[in-house]
């Protein structure tokens, strides 16, 4: 994993969570099937863009965030979709996003 760059680490590999880290993670799906190569955008409580990753071949994504209410929006050539997640504290917060 790169220490000085902005490329996201590989999505979907084992997650190591630091004691104070807030991790939002899950899958993008279409009709239940994982969607790889989707552009997954993290929006804050006011709808403002915060970060973006590309989902792995298995549809996985992950964000390191702060506690709060977040929206995760996925864009793919097959369609778009979004889901909300409320991270009340450090730890791993799962969320699924359906695109259509």
């Amino acid at each position, binding site marked *: 994993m790169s220490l000085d760059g*902005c490329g996201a680490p590989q999505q979907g590999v084992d997650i190591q969570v630091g004691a104070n880290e807030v991790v939002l993670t899950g899958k993008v799906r279409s009709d239940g099937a994982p969607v790889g190569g989707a552009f997954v955008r993290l929006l804050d409580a006011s709808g403002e863009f915060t970060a973006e990753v590309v989902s792995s071949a298995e549809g996985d994504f992950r964000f390191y965030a702060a506690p709060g209410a977040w929206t995760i929006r996925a864009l793919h050539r097959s369609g778009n979709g979004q889901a909300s997640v409320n991270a009340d504290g450090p730890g791993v917060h799962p969320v699924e996003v359906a695109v259509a």
Partner: protein
Amino acid sequence: MSREDVLVSAAWSEENLTTPGVVFVEVDEDTTAYDGGHIPGAVKIDWKNELQDPVRRDFVDREGFEKLLSAKGIANDDTVILYGGNNNWFAAYAYWYFKLYGHDTVKLLDGGRKKWELDGRPLDKEQVERPATGYQAQEQNLAIRAFRDEVVDAIGNKNLVDVRSPDEFSGKLLAPAHLPQEQAQRAGHIPSAINVPWSKAANEDGTFKSNEELAEIYGEAGFDGSRKTIAYCRIGERSSHTWFALHELLGHEDVKNYDGSWTEYGSLVGVPVELGSGKEG
């Protein structure tokens, strides 16, 4: 300078994939995207391994840039079309870098890889070989590159545009939310900086907003068009994106990118640092 001089659309690009004198270059920190499928005929540049000096914390020097472009088969009179992932962050960085070394005819593919993929345009895995050239670079144009002392001197008198996310600006986070939290010794921002996240300049599909929208966004945030400007982020790539918006699209004349950015500033001893939204005072 008009928008057409610095940006090309995905549609134009698809029509000009084989046009002589036009070279497509994918730029990313992680080049596995290129290896998994790239715009037909495009060569790749690895932001870290090819544009950064392997020992010193700096860019490759003029001679190194000449060697790199010669080996990639890029000639001085080629029109270079840059694109990449991460909403063109590293492509915008490379754009600024090409300008730094005096390559005039360089343009960004509006929306980068994202727009190309969302449009369902063709990608292939063909190995791209271009005959080597004898590329000649200029000395760095330091009118577009800021160093740390200049940044400290700019506090309170130039536009300092911090293009990181609000949580990085306020000191809550040290890095973007999709990355592990590491880096500078201290969190926060440079006093007197305004916070206009780079993403404000981009639409959801990665294309740049219109000039009218851009002017409104920076104006509302307190950008003063009569002042000189320095843009910064964490490592200088997101601020290249904003440098492009301010200098190339809006035509503000004296705009520099501080590539040392927060990883340097936030580790300096003795410089002022501000926390919070910056709007209280």
